[in-house]
């Protein structure tokens, strides 16, 4: 069975992207007499370029013998397990973006900072909690003042 290396995965993902975008480019308004080149030409040139380069990458990666690895599912599980804190940080950021318009800048930002600092710094000592709380509250207040009063930017 074919081993999925980084380059092979990248090339396949890019070929999929090219296919999806090429189909979508069909819905762009076609060329007219006053717009002879049409709006789809430039993206299609780029998609063709990406497609050719991705194929070259795939071919090159197939020429190099890959060391057989564990099945894809086990590999993905291992990859995820090794990056739990990073994936958790992504999830926290998505949650922050989702909550920002609902609960507002102060609560959402303070919550994001508290949780992400706790995630990365740890919560095993009082000192770490003090650092976490100090940074979170100070930064939220400071940025609010700078943006709202210094730069006249309304935060949600």
């Amino acid at each position: 069975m074919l081993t999925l290396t980084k380059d092979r995965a990248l090339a396949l993902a890019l070929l999929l992207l090219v296919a999806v975008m090429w189909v979508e480019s069909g819905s762009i308004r076609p060329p007219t007499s006053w717009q002879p080149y049409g709006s789809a030409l430039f993206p299609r040139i780029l998609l063709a370029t990406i497609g050719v380069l991705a194929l070259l990458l795939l071919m090159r990666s197939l020429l190099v013998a890959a060391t057989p690895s564990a099945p894809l599912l086990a590999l993905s599980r291992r990859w995820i397990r090794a990056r739990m804190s990073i994936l958790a940080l992504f999830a926290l950021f998505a949650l922050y973006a989702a909550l920002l318009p609902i609960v507002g800048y102060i609560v959402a930002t303070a919550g994001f900072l508290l949780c992400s600092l706790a995630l990365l710094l740890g919560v095993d000592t009082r000192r770490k909690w003090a650092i976490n709380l100090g940074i979170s509250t100070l930064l939220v207040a400071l940025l609010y003042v700078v943006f709202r009063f210094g730069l006249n930017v309304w935060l949600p």
Partner: protein
Amino acid sequence: MTHFFLQALAEVGSPSVLGLIIVGVLFGIIGGSIPGFTVTMAILVVFPFTFAMDPVSGVSLMIGVFVGGYSGGIVSGVMLGIPGTPSSITTVYDGYPMAQRGEPGRALGIGIVASFLGTLISVAVLVFFGPLIAGFSMNFRPWEITALIVFALTLVAGLSNGALLKGLLAAAIGLLITTVGYDRNSNLRFDFGLPALSSGFEILPVMIGVFAFSQLLGNIEKLRDEKGGKPPVNTDVAIPYRRILKDMGAQKLNTLRSSLIGSLIGALPGTGGTVANFVSYDQARKFSREPETFGKGTPSGIVASEASNSAVAGGAFVPTLALGIPGDLPMAIMMGVLILHGITPGPLMFEQNPVLVGAIYVSLMVGAVVMVLCNLMLMRWFAKIALIPQQVLVPVVLMLCAIGAYALNNNLFDIWVLFIFGVVGYLLWKAEMPLTPLILGVVLGDNLERQLFRALELDANWLTFLTRPLSALFLALAVASILFSLYQDRKVRARAANTA
């Protein structure tokens, strides 16, 4: 010109702009001092604060960060033995051994003065060559501009650490990102039925997402891999001023050569401080009468490294201002600042915004003076700040990026754009895809499409790109840069195969 220069001097000399330069330099030095933070990240974090400013204030603040950032790497390089930025790697080779043998003040002092002189010499290069190149490029028509952008992108892609194919892919993906939303003919492209995509992606959230997420989360991964704390640091440093004056007196030629190398490399697309750093260090060793002292704490090594990486600041402005083509990542962001303020960098900028061009020259010089003063007065504080753990830094910078993206248009969608491109950037980074060509593609995409179709509207024959001498020259250079990268790639692989 003198009239505009004096007007620029008056604007930059106002207390508010001076204050901004000081803040920028301080932040830049801090950003440059913290290992893994880099000048680019410092510039990205400060960028949103310029939205509400006038162009001179905004650009001056950014230049302050730029100048401070390139010099900041010396603190962690000398005190911790860890380069604060990739452009100060060779500073560690001699700065750290000198500090280890009990002369940290001397190492820092030499580095700071060399940084200062490097910046000043690079400003002279910018003042001389900027208008010359801009004047020459005034003759460029759409064919030449298109070919020049293609050349810049292939050059950057080709210099992507031996990953030509991935570099070219990254550049093409960057260009593709700019095709989302309404185009030059008001036709909608790739909106996938989502109204939010109709106006396309703003450059800033895309740039921050792709660059900041990959770098910050990469730092977290490195922390996990490298177990063990930072070395204990003695921040009680005294600067031996007389000794440094004597040292620098003996380094006049080295300083000039290294600064010119830095300015020249800064002006080439895709190179920047890291390349300047190594080339200049190598040249200094070749020209030295005592090459065996390099790597053991010689002042020549520190001067070569710091003068060249600081000189990149002025040199990098040459193609950005004169041609509208940023040479590296910090310059791509700087170009974003100018575009945000309604100024299109390029040859016309020298005619249409001479005061702003003058303000850039003056800000670079003032920034260099402020950098020396701040470094000399606050060095021990910077050394302490350099110890801020990444675990604290990463959440804070991510939050600042989110607020910065929002503040651009008071639009929450931009935070989602930041997040999505953050995920994309992180995955591409994990796939060992170079991200600089992608970001340059995002910055240059609109202009490339506009110029390409302007050329085709003027003359429908595609062969005109090859019949116009300059356009043909740029395209030939693009092909040559790809062939040269292929040759380099093959050489590296053959060497690796031989050693295996």
